[in-house]
């Protein structure tokens, strides 16, 4: 039918590597291969046409392993047209730069949205499904490492420890949900290891996913801090345990690390490691809010005052603000602590006061 310009091709029979020069033509939706011993006729339905891929020759494959290799060009396009062949949607999109730029923008947006919302949401769904025993194992390992490298035994007097321990028990027992953590739900006293004059970790308390809450002497020794305020901080940490924030965080950073490794791992492990580190999240603002709210509720339940949490936060902030000033003059970046992993203190203090100010 269409005999504009003949389409020449090389035919392979699938049994040998021999090339057979042939001429292709379309007739009523049937491909005619001329140049072999006899003319071969193949209906379009029985042909697999390869996608255009750069300047590579395209292939028309027939069911029996035979195929034709054809240079790209007008002649081939005319032939395919005459056969009634349509390129797939993906191919048509792939061919256009405008689409590629759009695709790029969409990829960036999807990744950003995934990191911002999808990941926390997913982690929130998964975290509660992880058995307590698994988290316990995980935490034991972490605690062991911490004890080995960063923490030393507390030097608080046994009496003081007992007081705080009693307060902690009251907090823990006030929430029956926490019973699932069993014996691991405990308050541990530690002191930050001092290294060569550097002050190490400052006043701090933190929770492990398995239920252990670690209280550092430095926090207890903070100027003017009362036991009630310390307990308020512990209640906040119990909030992290209860809401499984540690687990969520772990899931989030694992996924982020896996994705960066998939994307950048090919370039360099070092680079992808850095990227993963940059994406590693501290507790998010939402988690802090949840833990604050939990702490406030717990304190109210025990007839204590949520204001204690607010004032504890302020004292911590004051401490770090002072340290920062003096540290900047000596060696910058020496101090890391509670507030680093707990951003936006001001806003949190105000929120607590706003909600529970009347008490």
């Amino acid at each position, binding site marked *: 039918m269409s005999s504009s310009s003949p389409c*020449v091709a090389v035919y*392979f029979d*699938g*049994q*040998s*590597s*021999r*090339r057979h*020069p*042939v*001429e292709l033509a379309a007739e009523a939706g049937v491909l005619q291969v*001329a*140049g072999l011993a006899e003319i071969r006729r193949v209906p379009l339905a029985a042909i697999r046409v*390869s*996608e255009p*891929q*750069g300047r*590579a*020759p395209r*292939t028309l494959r027939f069911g029996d*392993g*035979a195929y034709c*290799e054809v*240079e790209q060009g007008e002649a081939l396009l005319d032939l395919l047209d005459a056969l009634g062949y349509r390129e797939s949607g*993906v191919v048509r*999109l*792939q061919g*256009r*730069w405008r689409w*590629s730029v759009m*695709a*790029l923008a969409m*990829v960036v947006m999807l*990744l950003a949205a*995934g990191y911002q919302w999808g990941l926390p949401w997913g982690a929130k769904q998964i975290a509660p499904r992880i058995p307590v025993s698994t988290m316990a*194992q*995980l935490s034991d*390992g*972490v605690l062991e*490492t*911490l004890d080995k*490298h*960063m923490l030393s035994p507390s030097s608080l007097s046994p009496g003081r420890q007992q007081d705080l321990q009693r307060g902690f028990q009251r907090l823990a027992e006030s929430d029956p949900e926490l019973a699932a953590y069993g014996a691991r739900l405990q308050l541990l006293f530690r002191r930050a*290891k001092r*290294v*060569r004059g*550097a002050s190490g970790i400052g006043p701090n308390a933190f929770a492990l996913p398995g239920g252990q809450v670690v209280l550092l002497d430095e926090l207890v020794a903070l100027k003017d801090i009362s036991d009630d305020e310390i307990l308020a901080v512990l209640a906040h940490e119990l909030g992290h345990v209860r809401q499984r924030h540690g687990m969520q965080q772990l899931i989030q950073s*694992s996924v982020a690390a896996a994705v960066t490794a*998939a*994307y*950048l*791992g*090919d*370039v*360099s*492990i*070092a680079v992808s*490691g850095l990227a993963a580190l940059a994406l590693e999240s501290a507790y998010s603002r939402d988690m802090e809010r949840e833990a604050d709210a939990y702490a406030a509720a717990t304190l109210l339940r025990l007839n204590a005052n949520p204001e204690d949490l607010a004032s504890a936060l302020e004292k911590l902030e004051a401490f770090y603000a002072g340290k920062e000033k003096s540290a900047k003059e000596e060696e910058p*970046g*020496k101090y890391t602590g509670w507030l680093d992993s707990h951003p936006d203190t001001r806003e949190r203090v105000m929120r607590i006061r706003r909600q529970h100010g009347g008490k």
Partner: protein
Amino acid sequence: MSMPTHYQTLGLPEGAGIDEVRAACNKALQHFIQQQRTGAPLPMEDFEALQAARAEIGDPRRKARYDQELAARRASGDGNRTTPALFSGATTIAPAAKPAPSQNADEVSEHRFQFTGSGGEYFRIWITNLLYTLLTLGMYSAWAKVRREQYFHRNTLLDGSGFDYHGNPVAILKGRMLAGLLLVIYSSSQRFFPWPVYTGVLLLALPLLPWLVQRSLVFRARNSSYRGLRFDFHGSYRTACATLLPYALCTIFMLWSAHMVAETEVEPEYTPQSLRFQIAEDMTQTNHQETTPPILLAQQEPWETGADDGARKSVDELAGILAKARQEEGAKESARKKLPSPDPKYAIMMLLSILLLSLCTPWFLYSINRFRLNHLAFAHARFRSHIRVGAFYRIAIIAGLMPTLSMTLVAILFSVSAAAIGAGRFSAVFISIFLLSGALLYLGIFSGQAYTQSQLNNEIWNETELEKYHFSSDQSFQDLLLILAGNFLLTLLTLGLYWPWAKVRLARYRADHLALLAPSGALDEFAGQNSTDDRAIGEEIADAFDFDIAL
């Protein structure tokens, strides 16, 4: 006398435009077909000459090079035949082609591989793949893989014909799902179980490793074809075991002792951390895993064939363990020097195992490449490799010296500058020294990589033959160094967007520097039954554990 130029073959004036060339090719081919149909076929040599001309001057890049060569030849007085007028009629296939083959039918000519892809094209495929994969939560990645493979296979030409890839996306998807599941189980066992349990899991999984490697070599070979004939891989599970297991055991031993050392504490700046950086960098070559047809496979970094899962995995492992330990200990505490001394027993064991491992690695690379090549087949024709273990050691030693040298330089630089700067006022100088040493370190690493890759490729292909035909590979260290370093920098600066261009650039270099030496027409004489393979599971698991989820 001398062979006609390709322009003469086509009856074109020298330097004719690309469109003219293509039109002439088509016209000549048509004429050829016409003759065949009328029962008076032209000799096959004409067809060969025509195909050769099309391959050489039908491609803009090669044409440019060829034109230059012609000009040079003429300038040197070598070719006084400057009369294109001889062949004015394009209706006949260049008659000059006829006398040429009369010389010697067996005369060997060089068939260069050719890569016709471009970065822009591959970028568009890549970004579409990435988007669809994200939108389908990973399901599309199997189709993405097929598209990518096809792009690289089909754009790799040898003697005018392209390679092809036949992987079945559904099979690949199934394999990927299973692999993903295993990966999750594996990495969570690494995270959540204590070390002994995890080591147990590793040991239990050990027999699986050769199987994965063997399966993935079979899958890749059987799903690649050239001129309608598939490749095949005949290596058995047993041979794979013999090749891989000793090395894997060695690696596990090293991991174990490294772990024991990390447990009992050594100077942290010194131990595994710096070691990890070094090995990790050495091992993380850019990952070109599956983007070259199997015949070009050895062009990849040999420890990347997936076959060395053990080696690479172990590095990942080591990196993982140490990173974990570091994170836990080091995130908050930056300076810690005074420590209880490590258990010397484990430290010695670790040193020994590292020594053992570095002694074994070249041998391992040698045997894995022998395994890979000596069981590879194209149709009925087998590949034979005569690589020499000595060459592997030589390459490893020289390549190992490069990063060592750069590190020594950096160390000297630092101590000298520390002494020079001494007291205060150092910011600008310090920063420039810091940058300089960073550059030096990377230069050392890339030099090592480029040297290993280029020299191993040359060794492997120059010592390998397909039936009676030899290959020739002439990659150069300097070229590859420029490409690797350039790719790395540009990829970094563009936040990864340059990646498709980088891949294409490397693929092109690799193809350009590999050739098959065979009499013209020899490539027409392969024959055989095709075996196919739809079981992607082995390959996908191997890939997943290689962390090759790149799109």
